[in-house]
């Protein structure tokens, strides 16, 4: 092949340019400490990095959510522990009041003790953290608990204290971080049993049970389930006083319950997820909840029963004990049982919240591990291997130097040099 001078210089320049390009790439990587500066440097690597970064930011948010949730739970637990100490004092006071030698003055002292506990328990029940009532459910508009207008009883002031505050703590898990006030302080009439799926449309079943006002007066709660269509029932309720008259000026609105035809479980209530129903009558100071969530539909005769967790709230029990002691009347065994039940319930809830805290801490550890792993993977994709890069740099520099040397020796030579 005939070799012209431009061939030699063009060939040399092409190779030199390639060598310098390789050198520049290494220098760019060293300066930025990144293997991927543009997506086209590694389209697959970029996709992996972006995916990992998205997962990492999500994990970081979940970690932050957990951190805040743990603080909230710790605050709730602290209040529950304070409450259980106070309730233990109440139980001791009740035991003390059994002493036959107590005079009126002693009884008054005990009454004052109970009053002090009542105030404390109210404070704990209404305590807040980060602008939220710890036991107010999801209603932040008003203090959850307060005295009735006549000052004789405690009632729920918030419109709803049953709400759960749900927080996403991992990709697959949502956790309720609050203890709804209703779980501790509300009287809940839980309905159990089944409705007959084979019954005709129009057939109805009624369950009757007792509910009480703060003074201990009994009322009759009638809950009626009437079939309106397949798997669908209209639920109505009424509360009757001792004379058999309804305490409501107008009948409460009926609820539409729809059961799952396959499992028989309650699927929706008025089109939403099933929940507890608040029942309140200010004039009678009646306040309780109906929980129909456990009612099922089955192909057997309808059978509905109910049970209540307490006759009245701990506040009103304490008010009754206080007022009795003030009048020289010792607490009844029923009242002592109610206080003991509340104490047990407190311990139970403390244990539940403690478990939630433990779970959050476990998820926290897992997420931290996950974040570390992701960071490592991102680093593998993105970050340069400096020792390798230094060796490559030295190698390329050596090649370039050689090229320059060769060029300086060969390029100027021609026949002219020897003429």
């Amino acid at each position: 092949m005939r070799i012209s001078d431009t061939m030699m210089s063009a060939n040399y320049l092409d190779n030199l340019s390639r060598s310098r390009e390789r050198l520049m790439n290494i220098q760019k990587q060293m300066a930025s400490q990144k293997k991927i500066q543009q997506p086209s440097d590694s389209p697959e690597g970029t996709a992996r990095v972006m995916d990992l970064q998205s997962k990492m930011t999500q994990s970081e948010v979940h970690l932050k959510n957990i951190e805040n949730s743990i603080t909230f739970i710790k605050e709730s637990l602290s209040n529950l522990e304070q409450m259980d100490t106070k309730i233990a004092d109440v139980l001791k006071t009740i035991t003390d009041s059994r002493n036959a030698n107590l005079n009126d003055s002693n009884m008054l002292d005990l009454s004052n003790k109970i009053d002090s506990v009542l105030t404390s328990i109210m404070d704990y029940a209404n305590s807040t953290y980060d602008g939220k009532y710890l036991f107010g459910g999801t209603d932040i508009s008003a203090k959850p608990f307060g005295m009735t207008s006549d000052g004789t009883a405690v009632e729920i002031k918030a419109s709803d204290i049953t709400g759960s505050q749900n927080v996403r703590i991992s990709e697959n898990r949502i956790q309720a971080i609050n203890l709804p006030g209703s779980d501790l302080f509300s009287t809940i009439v839980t309905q159990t049993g089944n409705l007959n799926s084979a019954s005709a449309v129009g057939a109805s079943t009624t369950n009757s049970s007792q509910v009480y006002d703060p003074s201990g007066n009994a009322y009759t709660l009638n809950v009626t389930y009437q079939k309106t269509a397949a798997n669908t029932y209209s639920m109505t309720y009424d509360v009757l006083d001792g004379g058999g008259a309804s305490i409501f000026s107008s009948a409460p609105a009926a609820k539409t319950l729809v059961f799952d035809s396959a499992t028989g479980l309650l699927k929706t209530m008025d089109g939403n997820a099933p929940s507890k129903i608040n029942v309140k009558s200010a004039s009678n100071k009646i306040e309780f909840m109906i929980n129909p969530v456990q009612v099922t539909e089955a192909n057997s005769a309808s059978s509905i029963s109910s049970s209540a967790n307490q006759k009245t709230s701990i506040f009103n029990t304490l008010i009754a004990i206080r007022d009795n002691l003030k009048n020289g009347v010792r607490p009844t065994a029923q009242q002592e049982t109610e206080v003991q039940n509340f104490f047990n319930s407190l311990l139970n809830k403390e244990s539940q919240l403690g478990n939630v805290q433990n779970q959050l801490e476990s998820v926290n550890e897992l997420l931290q591990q996950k974040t570390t792993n992701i960071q490592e993977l991102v680093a593998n994709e993105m970050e340069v291997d400096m020792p390798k890069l230094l060796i490559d740099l030295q190698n390329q520099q050596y090649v370039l130097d050689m090229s320059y040397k060769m060029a300086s020796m060969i390029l100027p030579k021609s026949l002219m040099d020897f003429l």
Partner: protein
Amino acid sequence: MSLSRIFDISRRSLATYQRALDSTAHNVANSANADFSRRRVVLTPDTPEVNAGIVWGTGVKLVDIQRLRDTFADNQIRANNQKNSDSDKQTQLLGQIERSFNEPTDQGLATSIAGFFNSWSSLAVNPSSIPLRNNLLNSANLMTAKIKNIHDNLASLQETIQKDFSSITSTMNTALKNIQELNRQIYESKVMGSSSADLEDQRDLLIDDLSKMVNITVTYDSGGSANISVGGILAADRFNSTEFSTKVENGKIELIGKESGLGVSLKGGELNAIADVYNNKIPGYQGKLDTIVNAIMTSVNSLHQQGTDISTPAQGGLKFFESYEEGQLNLNYLITADPRRIAASADGSAGNGDIAVQMGDLLNAKTVDGASFTESYTNLISVIANDYKAQENRKEASALAIEQMQQVKSSVSGVSIDEEMTNMIRYQRSYDASAKLISAADELLKALLNMV
């Protein structure tokens, strides 16, 4: 045979080798000119004379100074020029597009999209918190700003390359005009019997440049004129050159004949690269981004309308985003004016954050053709990166082909100093010998004269 014949032969020989040395000098002078085609002198014995039944040689004559050129290499280089400049331009433009997205960095849109949905997840921890609501608004504003920024960058690039297209068209028109003029001059030189080699070099250089701008076909007629057609339209010959112009209609850019209005079928060169990026790539990428943004808007609005805010009394049914037009994702002004209008609650209570939780979950929901928002966006980035990579590979392949064909071309047309020096010595020695012949003939003549 007379002594004067020696003088004649030697004189012609001197003139011939002087011209040969001229040609060598021309070659040496252009040895560093990559676009120069070396010249080669063609010497033949002069027409012999027959005298007294004997054939007498009459010396040497220079019949031609050839311009050495490999037409096959020329055609291959031009064909690869079209591919190479197409890919090179696309690589440049795709690099700019790639940089508009700013990935994979913390400043990219992927991080902002994740940040927006993560802010919802954070809000669920304390749904009534105004600072957290403001954080959410900030992250929404950041995301919308990034979306707008990408849109504006792409629109600005389209505007710039439209000007680039017009500018290249104008350069192309000038080149075609010059080619037509050179064709005419080459033809006239040939008719007059003078050398047109330098003119041909100039013309071929213009044709090479033209092949980088647009897909051309070159044919040569018997008069030595190069007939150029651009995308099937006759663009230049010895008599005429066609002017082209840019047409932008319905968001598409096109090269058309200025007078005929006929569209050119672009298949290569920088103009094809620009047209492809302008007409297909940028609208394609923007379209994919629009699909993602619209999906975000629809999903977020749909969920937001189901929730309630923390105003008194609690209200619902509000859209989070008002509209998405021209890259601008507009937040509902009621929400930007009052963060309490953000609907995070599913049950009407201010402390409920179930809608916020569900909003956070949208980040992983398979909403856009079976992919999540970030997956879909990552796919878009991958498409751009792979388009760039494909063009870069094409560019490297065509550059290698050009390099190889340049070697072939240079092997034929390039000047070799070694060769020229050898020729110079050869011509110089022949010149010296011819001079010596005159001197010898002179001695002979002198000897004869002395005899008189």
